[in-house]
């Protein structure tokens, strides 16, 4: 049966190049066209935009709505109006989100969720309220208390508010079955994304990090069922021995979890001599480690518990008893990476304030790293490329253990 399914899949499979091209177009479509079309296909459908880093998209899906990731305008949007809202010393993403909103690219999105990441995104939720953008604006306060009976309950209540907002728009009462089904779909989604990363750990030449990025980001702006179909095909393709190995070191990129680097910068890091075997670019899509239980009678409690017990570390969470420097070091070890590239958006408080914590710890642990800052709209990468290239060369040429490829 499994073989039959696989053969059917292969029969209808698109080429990897076509899939990547499709994903790139979807990922950077500032009009969110696929989401808009999805909404128009059936009356009563609702679109819910969410900002980085993480939001449990399962609950939006279960409520008959579609989550739409809003990750800024990158280098594809000229900022004019947005600059009137944010001072020069504030990161770039809020101004590009304002620009997209004020240019009416998001008029078809019904509500907006601002997860608790930092003061800037939190206050942006207030500006959306003040400007009356969307039918609802929700600042999602993720718990910093990690006891299921305290923080877990609060988190469930927060999710309940989101469901209430959606119900006011589409009248849908969410059932346990709806939620468990949605959890299952997103479990599969994460499994396949992790499969891609696992393959890349051993064979990073089969798919570049730039291509992985497009594939993962596309999943934030299309229905999860469609994304899963794309991922299934990508996974099949990369099981094959494709691509040509190159003499590059392996690195983990950390710190770019909110404002996203331009695609050119993501590409430049690999071109400069580093296979990126793990990263936090689209951390939200990989936030929960492993599956969430799909068999309980209280799926909201299950989602809350997964957040509390199974989350990836994040600069916006202070898990006192689980220090992040050791967790990042573990990723470096597990991925057999040669070093870490800290890439923080300019003026990104969470990322930049974490930098000394990581770097001081890594100095003691002997993990090699470099650090640079970027802005989503920069498209000149020469300096960063040289910096990354030097880092790569220093490891390749002067380290005792040469990287075998």
């Amino acid at each position: 049966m499994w073989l039959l399914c696989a053969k059917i899949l292969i029969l209808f499979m698109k080429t990897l190049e076509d899939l990547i091209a499709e994903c790139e177009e979807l990922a950077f479509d500032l009009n969110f066209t696929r989401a808009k079309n999805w909404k128009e296909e059936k009356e009563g459908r609702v679109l819910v935009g969410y900002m980085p880093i993480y939001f449990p998209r399962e609950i939006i899906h279960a409520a008959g709505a579609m989550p739409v990731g809003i990750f800024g305008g990158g280098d594809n949007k000229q900022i004019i109006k947005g600059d009137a809202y944010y001072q020069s010393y504030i990161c770039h993403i809020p101004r590009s989100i304002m620009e997209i909103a004020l240019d009416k690219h998001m008029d078809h999105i019904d509500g907006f969720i601002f997860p608790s990441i930092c003061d800037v995104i939190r206050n942006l939720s207030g500006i959306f309220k003040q400007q009356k953008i969307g039918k609802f604006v929700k600042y999602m306060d993720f718990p910093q208390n990690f006891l299921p009976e305290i923080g877990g309950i609060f988190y469930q209540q927060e999710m309940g508010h989101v469901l209430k907002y959606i119900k006011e728009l589409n009248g849908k009462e969410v059932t346990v079955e709806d939620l468990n089904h949605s959890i299952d779909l997103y479990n599969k989604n994460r499994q396949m994304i992790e499969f891609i990363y696992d393959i890349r750990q051993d064979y990073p030449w089969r798919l570049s990090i730039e291509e992985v990025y497009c594939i993962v980001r596309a999943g934030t702006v299309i229905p999860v069922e469609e994304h899963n179909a794309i991922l299934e095909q990508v996974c099949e393709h990369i099981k094959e021995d494709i691509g040509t190995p190159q003499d590059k070191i392996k690195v983990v990129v950390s710190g770019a979890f909110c404002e996203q680097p331009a695609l050119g910068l993501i590409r430049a890091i690999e071109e400069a001599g580093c296979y990126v075997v793990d990263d936090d670019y689209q951390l939200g899509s990989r936030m929960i480690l492993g599956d969430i239980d799909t068999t309980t009678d209280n799926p909201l409690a299950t989602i809350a518990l997964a957040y509390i017990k199974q989350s990836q570390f994040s600069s916006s969470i202070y898990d006192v008893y689980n220090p992040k420097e050791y967790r990042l070091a573990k990723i470096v070890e597990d991925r057999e990476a040669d070093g870490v590239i800290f890439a923080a958006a300019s003026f990104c408080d969470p990322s930049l304030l974490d930098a000394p914590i990581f770097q001081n710890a890594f100095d003691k642990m002997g993990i090699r790293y470099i650090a640079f800052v970027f802005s989503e709209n920069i498209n000149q990468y020469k300096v960063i490329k040289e910096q990354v290239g030097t880092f790569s060369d220093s490891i390749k040429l002067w380290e005792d253990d040469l990287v075998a490829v």
Partner: protein
Amino acid sequence: MSKEAQKEKSMILQKEMVSSLFNDLAHAKELGKKVCYTFIPGNLSELIQTFDMLPVYPEINALQSAMRKKSSAYIKEAERHAHSEDVCTYVKCDVGMMMKGNIGPTGQKIPEPDVLLLSYTGCFTFLKWFETLKREYPNAKVIMVHTPYQENGEITSEMTEYMVKQFKEVVIPEMEKVTGIKFDESKLKRHLTLAAEAEDWITKIFDSTKHKPSPIDAYFAGVYYIGPINIGFRGTQKAVDYYKELYKEIQERIDKGLGPITPEGEMKEEKYRLVVEGPPNWTHFREFWKIFYDMGAVIVASSYTKVGGVYDLGWRHDPERPLEALAEYCMNCYTNMNIPQRIDLLKKCIVDYDADGYVTNSIKSCNSFSAGQLGMMREIEDSLEVPVGFIESDLVDPRYFSYSNIKNRLESYFQMLEQRKKMEAVPV
């Protein structure tokens, strides 16, 4: 050259209170007291007192360092240790001070923390700050209190219950463990009663700016007035006595029709009444203030003086609901209010205190305040048709205080205010 500042009895009283706190801190071990580092917004002074701990406020150390011209060296020290130029300078100043021996404003060493009480309210950087300090003080106990944000402009029962559960099941048991002192609710209630009394007095004090001329400057002098209530004395008789004395002095000024006291004596003429949004610059505090009082501008209300608690809308610590009161206090601090709430509060200040203008001092390294200020300013200008001004500086990094830029901007702004006053005086 600045003249010697005038000293009133309340100022001397405050100086004594602060000195005694730092003296106690320097001798914390001999006194057998545990040391609790915490932050001004959402400070749980009454709970700290209930457990006989001594508070340390890292922001206060940072701003004191700036006023003593030491912050520059501290910031550079932190930047040498991988701290970015782009982030909160309070953090870097505090980290640098720690690296250089942790000597406080009185010249005495500030002891290491037994507790890092992270009742983080309205500022994510607090979280990162204590993450950093925890690495430096591995023996300190981190006690986290998550304060939900007033995202919908209200404090719901869910939010309060969430905080009360944290107090009951995490904060209080942890404090009992660290101090070895059993929680005494009646003691907490006594402190809360005194807190409410101090809150009544400080509300009257800041409300005195309704008088013309205003007897006080609610920003530049206001930052001194909020000292005792914010740095660990709220909930004590000392704070009540201080505010009673201060109110008496202000009342005398009102009776005599006097304006505010500045570092160079009494302000003679009140030409402009302003509301200011944002914290002040501390590295050039006096020069900054002087630009205003030289132009006859008095600040009749400011958002910064509400950062450690918003009392002017009537909220008080209620000793009959002790833990709920602590929760509501934390959630009710200015930076924990959403942007529309902040706008409403500032508009109320402009109207209630009959302000001629609204000025934003945008602080480079404080996103909690700064992100959204431009939108707020536009909304205030549009709805009240009040002239708005905008300047930029920083908290404690002298590299970001440009005296001539700020002066030029403010002079232009005051010219605009003057012109507007003249136009308003012309009969239509």
